[in-house]
Each structure stands twice: as structure tokens, then as C-alpha cells.
């Protein structure tokens, strides 16, 4: 169906060369360099020691319980954030999908504006909401409900909240795209055939809108598991994730090889997850 061979077919593939070359030079080659760096000894002031001294010590260090723990913690936070985004986003997407067209586009806009608004602006907004003199504390103090500010920020909770706030629109939009295509009369058919609402949802609506849910999961999980800006701002240096750890190796710790080894471990984790997602979404789209 896609692209049949024709006269232009022979020269056609050449058009892909500029983009492919660009990505080979500025994306794949740097990744290969990272791979090499992870296997040689560090230099004193960052970079690597010259002449290159091969070693696998950084991979051995990676399985230290301290770092394994941070990997698990990042995965746990990312799963939690992904779960919250999907659970909050799905009903919202359903609501928008089933509202009359006149109401639908303003509602979509209310989701789109935060989606397009600068990520840092949004994180900053969440920080102001939770901060010691911020929105929630300010309001509660003003109302006299509390007398000293609650410590809402600089803990794992605030990091999770900041990440949910930052990536939530990424979850809503793909789910909305799936739900909008879903024919709601199928739910009526299911209930006519004797299914209760719960069963109709689990056996009809959820399977048919699942590609959108999967896309949402990937779009939230991938950036969140490697996040370092949000943990930095919302965690105040107290919440360690893989991203903050890698960032430190290339900053103050000046340990490029260890940071590289960690990045590769993160990459393997994410690519495995995405491939798993692609495979299961392909199966879903197969007719019958």
C-alpha cells in the first residue's frame, strides 16, 4: 500500500540521506562515544584519562546497592507518575470525547495551553503553589487553618506532583485521540446485550482505546524515568533520581565514565520498555 516502486523509486532513497547522515553524526556517533567513555578510566578534571586505560570498574560500581536503589526508586517514581497521569487523564479524555463539539474545542484548548506552555514555566508554577510561602501555605495561613507553613516541597511527594503536572498533558492527548475514534454506541450495544457498565468498559471500551493508553504510558514514562530538572527544582537536592545522579557525574563529580555507564544502563532500560510497547501495540492493531 505504501510507496510502490516506480521510475523515481531508484533515486528516491537518496532523499533520506541528509537526515540519516545528520542523525548518524550528531546522535549515533555521540552515543558510541559515550559507550567508549564508559569503558575507560576517568580523567582528573573530567573527561577521560589519556592515554586511554580500559576498565569495567564503572559497570561494577553500578551494581552497588546504593545505585541499584536509585534506579529502582526512579523506576518506582516514574511508574507512579505514569499511573497517576493515566488514571486522571483517561476520564478527562472520555469527558472531552463525549461532550458536544461546541464544548469540545474549548475543553481541548484548556488541555492544550498547559501542554504547549513551557515546561519550566509549569514546574515553576508548581513550585510556587507548594513553596513555604507559596499558594497553598499562603492560603491556609491566611485562613488561619495553620500557624506555620507546612513542608509541602522538597520531598518525594512534591517531585511526584511536579512530574505529574509537567507530563500530564502528554498522557491526555494520545488517549483523547483514541477515545475520540471510539464509537460510544458500542457501549450501548454491550449494555443491550446484558453487560453492566463495568464489564462493558473493561471488555469493550478499554481494549479498543488501549493503543492511546499505551502511547500515554510511553510518552510519560520515558522522560520521567530520566528526569533531572523537576527532581532538582521540586526536590531541592534531597530527592535523588537517575537523572540527577548522571547530571552530577558530568558536573561537580567530574566522573564522565561513571555517568556514561549510568546513561547506557538507563538507555537499555528505556529502549527495552519502548520495544515492548511497540510489540504489544502492533499486536493490538492486528485485525482479529
Amino acid at each position, binding site marked *: 500500500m505504501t510507496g510502490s516502486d*516506480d521510475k523515481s523509486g531508484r533515486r528516491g532513497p537518496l532523499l533520506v540521506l541528509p537526515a540519516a547522515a545528520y542523525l548518524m553524526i550528531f546522535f549515533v556517533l555521540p552515543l558510541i562515544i559515550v559507550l567508549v567513555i564508559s569503558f575507560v578510566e576517568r580523567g582528573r578534571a573530567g573527561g577521560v584519562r589519556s592515554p586511554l586505560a580500559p576498565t569495567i570498574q564503572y559497570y561494577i560500581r553500578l551494581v552497588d546497592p546504593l545505585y541499584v536503589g536509585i534506579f529502582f526508586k526512579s523506576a518506582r517514581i516514574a511508574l507512579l507518575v505514569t499511573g497517576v497521569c493515566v488514571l486522571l487523564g483517561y476520564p478527562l479524555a472520555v469527558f472531552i470525547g463525549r461532550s458536544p463539539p461546541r464544548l469540545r474545542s474549548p475543553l481541548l484548548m484548556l488541555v492544550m495551553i498547559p501542554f504547549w506552555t*513551557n515546561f519550566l514555566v509549569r514546574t515553576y508554577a508548581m513550585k510556587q503553589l507548594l513553596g513555604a510561602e507559596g499558594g497553598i501555605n499562603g492560603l491556609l495561613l491566611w485562613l488561619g487553618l495553620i500557624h506555620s507553613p507546612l513542608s509541602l516541597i522538597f520531598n518525594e511527594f512534591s517531585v511526584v506532583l511536579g512530574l505529574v503536572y509537567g507530563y500530564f498533558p502528554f498522557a491526555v492527548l494520545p488517549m483523547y485521540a483514541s477515545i475520540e475514534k471510539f464509537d460510544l454506541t458500542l457501549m450501548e450495544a454491550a449494555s443491550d446485550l446484558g453487560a453492566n457498565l463495568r464489564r462493558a468498559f473493561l471488555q469493550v471500551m478499554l481494549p479498543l482505546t488501549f493503543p492511546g493508553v499505551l502511547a500515554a504510558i510511553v510518552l510519560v514514562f520515558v522522560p520521567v524515568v530520566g528526569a533531572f530538572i523537576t527532581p532538582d527544582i521540586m526536590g531541592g537536592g534531597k530527592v535523588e533520581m537517575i537523572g540527577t545522579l548522571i547530571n552530577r557525574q558530568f558536573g561537580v563529580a567530574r566522573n564522565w565514565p561513571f555517568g556514561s555507564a549510568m546513561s547506557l544502563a538507563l538507555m537499555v532500560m528505556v529502549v527495552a520498555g519502548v520495544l515492548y510497547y511497540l510489540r504489544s501495540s502492533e499486536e493490538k492493531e492486528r485485525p482479529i
Partner: protein
Amino acid sequence: MRSEANESRGRAPLSLRLATLGVILFLHVPMAIIFLYAFTTDDATFSFPPPGLTFDWFGVAVHRPDVWQALLLSLRVALIATLAALVLGTLAATAVYRSKFFGREAISFLLLLPLALPGIVSGIALRSAIGMADFPFGFWTIVIGHATFCIVVVYNNVLARYRRTGRSQVEASMDLGADPLQTFRYVILPAIGTALLAGGMLAFALSFDEIVVTTFTAGHEETLPIWMFSQLTKPRQRPVTNVVAVFVIVLTAIPIFLANRLTQGGSE
């Protein structure tokens, strides 16, 4: 037709409406707070309610050269990265659509990879590579990083459009004696025009928004997100950060609003 069918289904259950309201509030209350504190008279701490309201910070922000530098740098980077992505992405989509060749699947995967990997991985990779090549960090290294993940956005949009329009018009144009350039100018370009616009807008927004990769490729330059990040640790003139944030929110909302108005006139 559709709306009738929708309305016949009646209103959404109360729980669904409350959940929607809650989520919409969750999305917008923090942004409302940003707006509020752009007008506060207190320049160091944000107490509630604000002690007074003023427009002064807008004037202060306009006269801060660092704000302008960051904004202009972000706009320039996004513009160049988007242009590069438009050219490279459109060419790649054309190749993949028009011809079967060995490694076509691999090419799609390669294009997607910069968006599919956490930014921190590509960020440190670029930083290491640029450091080794001894290339000075700055404007061009930021652009190089941004273009890697902008290409796929244009590519996806254009490829989807090609698949929807089919190739009969192109064949008709060639049969009628148009040369490839004429066919591109008068047949292909009008067909993919809005896809280019949509892909370009998304690429621009991605670049304008980016902070993770930029952290590692910017050197001493400050894009707007990096400027904002650095302001978070400086208590001086805090409302200025809010003013800039408000400006960014408004700047973002206007094109969405216009695009929304434009598409509403059309079918679907």
C-alpha cells in the same frame, strides 16, 4: 449529525464531570498563581494575599537585558532548528513514502530515537562528543542538539499526510508533462503545506521548550528555559520571572487559539 448523536446520550455522570473539573483546576490553578504574583508589590517573598498589586514588574522586565538576550536566543535557536527539521524531515518522509529500500524500518527507528530516549542521555552524549571535537559550546551546539529531535516531528506529520493524499495526483501531474520541480511546486507542496505548518509549529515549540539537552550543549549561553532555571535560585526581583512566565504563557496561547479558530471553520 454527530452532535445530535452526542446530545441524545445525555449528560456525563456527575462523577465524571467532577473529575474533569478537578483535573482542569489542577492544570490551571498553578498558572493562575503565576499570573497573580506577576503583579505583587513584594519583590522577595510571595505571601498570600499579595500586599499590593502593581504593573511595575512589566516595565522592569522590559528593561532587563538578560531577559531579552535569553528570549532572542531561544527564538533564533528554535527558528534555525525548525528550518533544518523542515528540510531534513520532508526529504526523509518523501524517500520513505515513495520508495521501498533496504533499511526503511531502521531509518524510521533512527529518526524516532532522539525523541524516544530520555533527553539526559542524548544531552551527555552530545556534550561528550562536542567536548572531544573541541568545538566551542554556544548557539550552534544548541541548534545541533535541538534539530535531532525536531526532525522526527516534521517527518511524522509529512509522512502521515502523504499516506492520506495518495499518489494519483503526482502521477497525473507527471503524465501531463510537468517536470519534478513543477510537480513539487504546484502539486506536492500545496498538499503537504498544512502538514509542514503543523510539524513546523510543533518542532518550534519543542525547541523553544527544551531544557534538558540544552543544559549540556549551551555552554555559557542562556536560552529562556535556562534563564528561568537560573532565576529560581536567585531571590532578586522574583516577580520578573513571573512576568516572563506570563509572557510565555500568553505567547503560547495565542497560536493555539488562532489554530483552533481556523480549524473550526473547516470540516471536522
